[in-house]
């Protein structure tokens, strides 16, 4: 019986079994990719041609349509990693390990992009690429934590053992996420406070809010596609490693 055709009794085993997970989730990649492309096309069209320039910032406001989604993802991806870490620690869920590992480089990339676009935006509007402001500093710390987690994954030879250790560290590092969220309220220095999700409604006009939301969805879908593909790659990489190990044992015997 090949690994793909092993019986899956319910949805839980279908998720937990790496071979079955790849089998059913592979069908999701194409529709999700198409949705991503469409959302990006629509969002970019809105962002470049169908949204007004800001009355103060002019056209530089369009940087926001990349900056806000990547910044949102930098925290969302950590959330995905933290939830996966709980899955690893509590249920020893094999796909949670894989999800955690595949998400780390993506999160690091989105965080770096958020910092980079923020610097590009800060130069014309605040007059500086970088300031030691609460939100920027805490996002930089988030990037360092991501890089540390990637380094930790790479330091282990045995990836199965690594998962539980990395999961513990991921949860320890999660204390930084609320700090980022509330940094703009605690240290009101330079970065503006929350302006979309507020009790008294967003502080932006719909003409800017619409493309922003479409771009947030586009980037989130991009993450989902990349994350799925990354998980598939990781499952195959592990299978190759175990096959190689078996082959080496046979050669030695």
């Amino acid at each position, binding site marked *: 019986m090949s690994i793909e055709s092993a019986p899956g009794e319910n949805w839980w085993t279908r998720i937990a079994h790496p071979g079955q997970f790849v089998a059913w989730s592979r069908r999701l990649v194409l529709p999700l990719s198409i949705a991503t492309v469409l959302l990006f096309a629509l969002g970019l069209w809105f962002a470049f041609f169908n949204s007004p320039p800001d009355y103060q910032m002019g056209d530089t406001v369009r940087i926001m349509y990349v900056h806000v989604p990547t910044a949102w993802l930098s925290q969302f991806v950590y959330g995905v990693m933290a939830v996966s870490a709980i899955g690893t620690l509590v249920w020893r869920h094999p796909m949670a390990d894989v999800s955690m590992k595949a998400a780390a480089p993506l999160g690091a990339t989105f965080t770096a992009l958020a910092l980079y676009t923020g610097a590009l935006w800060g130069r014309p509007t605040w007059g500086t690429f970088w300031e030691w402001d609460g939100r920027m500093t805490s996002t930089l710390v988030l990037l360092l934590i991501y890089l540390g987690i990637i380094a930790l994954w790479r*330091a*282990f030879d045995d990836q199965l053992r690594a998962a539980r250790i990395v999961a*513990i*560290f991921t949860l*320890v*590092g999660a204390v930084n996420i609320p700090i980022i969220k509330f940094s703009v309220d605690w240290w009101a220095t330079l970065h503006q406070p929350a302006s979309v999700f507020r009790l008294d409604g967003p502080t932006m006009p719909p003409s800017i809010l619409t493309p922003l939301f479409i771009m947030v969805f586009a980037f989130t879908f991009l993450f989902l596609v990349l994350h799925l593909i990354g998980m598939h790659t990781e499952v195959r990489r592990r299978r190759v490693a175990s096959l190689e190990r078996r082959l080496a044992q046979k050669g030695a015997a």
Partner: protein
Amino acid sequence: MKPFAAIIARDVRLALRSGGDWLTLVLFFVMVGIVVPFAIGPDRELLARLSPGIVWIAAFLSSLLGLDRLFRADHEDGTLLLLRAADLPMSLVVLAKVIAHWLLTALPLIAATPLLAVMLAMDMATFLKAVLSLLVGTPALVALGAVGAAVTVTIRRGGLIAPVLILPLAIPVLIFGVGAISTGPGPDQSGTALLLLAAISLIVAALSPLAAALAINSSED
């Protein structure tokens, strides 16, 4: 309580009898303080203004340097495995080792602070605040370091990874540690910073043994 104290006593005795590792760490701490004036010039006023930051950076680097010593030797000779079989829960074992590590690596540094105070042209008030801030803040550094050391204990070259993991998490300790000595221009808020530093220390000291124990238990499986 007896096994808890026994672990502390054992670690301290081992470190004191097996050569002067802890003295090397003090030497490193003092040397960082000595090297900085060469880098920024012997301007006494500038040094006095930078001294809180320099003292904390020196303490920060020294505590990262000593991290690997926390669990590695016990892992390699199998002591950790035996400790897992003890009646004492692993988290308390970690707490005992953290206390011993603090006594061996942080306390000597604090005792060596007067040396740095003289060389960095600190005045008396700043010096006393620096000692207080180090006393309150270093437990947090050591406890955070325990998580880093526990997570990397089975990695052969873990000595390099643990500081990289712990450094970003320890930034708040650094911020409030320096803040408790001097807050720069504006009204003096060093008292508030010291209280926040104490809060961080207590929270980290209470929670990190649990995380470190979990890491040790799952890596020794």
